[in-house]
């Protein structure tokens, strides 16, 4: 098989993966809306098929270019999509048994792949000398794994923020509907002290009942987001350290405030802030989630904006 044939296999598998993800995304959204077991099973199968095609696309790309298939933004995006879908299927669906978030995770991968093929595509080719190091295996892999997990955590965080708002509104409306309690035969319009806990239980009950079109409870989403981000954080830390070691070998300094270094540091600081906020009273829940969301935006800047628009040593959009 020639390099050119491998390149065609890679591109065809990419197309298959993109459409499989798209179909699975629609399926998962349908499952969220109608809660039919069969829809979920089919969507899951299609997502796995897409995952297989995605993997073939990456491997074939590696054979076509005769090197590791993560040497430019297009390849990085394809691998990122794979890991986000795989992360969703293994962690969110496998470990935490949440089936309703598939549409959102797949949407992220579909968008990533669509952007990759529309704006970032380059044919398989060799690497520039600066990238030609075994550190590309260590540093870039760690960065991709960290990014994909942060992305997954970011998706869950966004859903948490929506769900949390919805739950608050639901609780408020339930509280408003409550008839004023009758005390000693008289109607007391001021709420008794115990009302808050009652409302909480009511709210929890309303949330707990699995309903069509409803996401998992805010509490669950918050916990899952935290778990994923806490898993990603050491990987990201390692990616930054590995990058610094590589920079010492390639550029003669381990840290030079190159835009990529700066933004990976900013992303790291924001997520470190999130982890601290989670364990600080008064910052749990929404405020912490907002920090995680800012971290997600910073991650996207670190990847897209720094590579494409900010001039620095990592501005290799092409090769």
């Amino acid at each position, binding site marked *: 098989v020639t390099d050119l044939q491998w390149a065609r296999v890679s591109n065809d598998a990419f197309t298959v993966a993109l459409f499989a993800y798209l179909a699975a995304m629609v399926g998962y959204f349908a499952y969220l809306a109608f809660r039919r077991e069969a829809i979920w099973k089919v969507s899951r199968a299609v997502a796995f098929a897409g995952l297989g095609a995605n993997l073939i696309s990456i491997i074939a790309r590696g054979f076509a270019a005769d090197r590791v298939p993560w040497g430019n933004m297009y390849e990085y995006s394809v691998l990122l999509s794979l890991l986000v879908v795989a992360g969703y299927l293994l962690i969110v669906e496998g470990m935490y048994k949440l089936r309703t978030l598939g549409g959102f995770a797949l949407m992220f991968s579909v968008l990533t792949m669509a952007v990759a093929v529309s704006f970032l595509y380059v044919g398989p*080719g*060799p690497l*520039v*000398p*600066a990238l*030609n*190091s075994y*550190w590309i295996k260590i540093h870039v892999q760690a960065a991709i794994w960290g990014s994909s997990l942060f992305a997954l955590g970011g998706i869950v965080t966004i859903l948490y923020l929506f769900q949390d708002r919805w739950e608050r509104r639901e609780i408020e409306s339930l509280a408003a509907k409550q008839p004023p309690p009758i005390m000693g035969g008289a109607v007391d319009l001021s709420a008794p002290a115990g009302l808050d806990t009652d409302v909480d239980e009511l709210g929890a009950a309303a949330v707990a009942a699995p309903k069509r079109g409803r996401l998992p409870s805010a509490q669950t989403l918050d916990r899952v987001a935290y778990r994923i981000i*806490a898993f990603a*954080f*050491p990987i990201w*830390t*390692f990616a930054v*350290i590995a990058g*610094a*070691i590589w920079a*010492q*070998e*390639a*550029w*003669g*300094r*381990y840290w*030079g*405030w*190159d*835009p990529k270094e*700066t*933004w990976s*540091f*900013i992303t790291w*600081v*924001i997520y*470190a*802030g999130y*982890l*601290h906020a989670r*364990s*600080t009273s008064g910052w749990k829940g929404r405020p912490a989630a907002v920090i995680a969301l800012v971290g997600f935006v910073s991650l996207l800047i670190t990847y897209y904006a*720094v590579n494409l628009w*900010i*001039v*620095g040593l990592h501005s290799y959009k092409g*090769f």
Partner: protein
Amino acid sequence: MRTALILLLLLALASVMGSLIPQYPNTPERVAQYKIDHGLFGSFLDRAGLFDVFGSWWFALITFLLFVSLVACLVPRTRALIRSLRSRPVQAREIDSFRHYAERNVAAAPEAVIAGSRRILRRRMFRVASDPARPALAAEKGAAREVGSLLFHWAFILILAGVIYGKGTGFSGYAVVVEGDTWIDAAANYDGQIRTGRFFGGDFTGTGLRLREFESAFRETGQPMDFVSRVDLIDADGSTIRSQDIRVNHPADVNGIRFYQINFGWAPRIVIRDAAGAAFDDTVVMDRDPAPEGIPDFAMPWRGVIKLPGAGEGSNAPDRAVELELWPDSRALFALLNGDEPQAMLTEFEPVIRYTVWDGRLTELATNAFDTTFMRETTSGILGAGRTVTLGGGDRAAGNGGGSSATIGFPDLKQYSVFQVSRDAGVPIVLLAAILILVGLLPALYTSRRKVWVRAEPAGTGAGSVLKVGGFALQRRPQFEDEFAKLLDALTDEAGGVPTDRGERERVSAP
């Protein structure tokens, strides 16, 4: 902690500015352009140090304050940790109100139950203390979380120490070496300015680097593939240390300094002779013209200038300068002259030099800048490699007939290699700190502090006793639920109870 977090956030915000505004140490030419484009705003940014955010006094101040607040935070925490590691787990008055609590009927006597429980807890790495007043135990586990967290945070102080030590005593500069030449590590031999640390003692090593050969390889597309400098490393006493290939990602490490492959270019050997003999015979390090948008970098010619004070021809012995424009691949020059597409010059192919001779008064002798204000062009021409031509021009008006006697020769085209030479003795410290950060981070995130209390009371009826176990986890509570249940089974089993025999008061999770 709050202060430290706010300062960390400020540091991140400063970094955002540093990445959006061009920075002098990274891209000086973009800073200059930015200043031209933004006028007053640009000079305001300059005044505020925003063109060198990471070297500005306020960035250093934020960093300093951050570390002060970090230390202020870590010292009491470390003390508390040491105190808690030294002290024994504290007994509880009531254990049935803890988040997890269960009772079991077991066969062993209370003292035996406690002895067995102690074994089980010890085996599970709990620190155990017995109650002198009654058959009871207090146990705890998971100090690794706080130890890891403190290790993680202290490691940043170590990073700071490594950075200050390494950058403070280190230096970084550039060495330009032509093929066949030997470069010696001494202050005068660096190209341009040497960046030195505040505590740099000027202790250059005298290490030599002889560039035997430079090779570059390109793909057909013009994409660079590999750059190699084949060098001999020579000690200060003149003995050869070793031969090595320096390429991108593969620096040479010798006598505490490192050589990194940074750049390369062409260096023609030029021989200029006048009536008095050889006026110039050396290699000239050429710079490549910056390529305009859309034209490959390597399509541009290379430029250099030879300054010969007092070598001009005519009365009063004016200065002479020879401007050179090198085309390493002459096909590119002909393509240009024919009006064809610009061609990248990736390898040497019948190189030619276009030269221009200027006579007059040289102003900037010390630098590479070439100012023609007080000079006039006397002659120009084209010269192929291996050829020598007569400089036709000269000051014929002077009538001394010297004009045509000068010659210029281009016997040989060589390559030069640019190395970054640097020393940073702090690298091992920073690397160690980075490893400690990771080592500390894992237990800090993935372990939890757990406390367990065990009590044994004589059973109300007959032999045996009632085993009471209470406990809670400070973090990772869902995981502790499972751990507590397993621990309870093990304790019951050890005390001769039936694990499935659930006591009448059973509460495994919170109320």
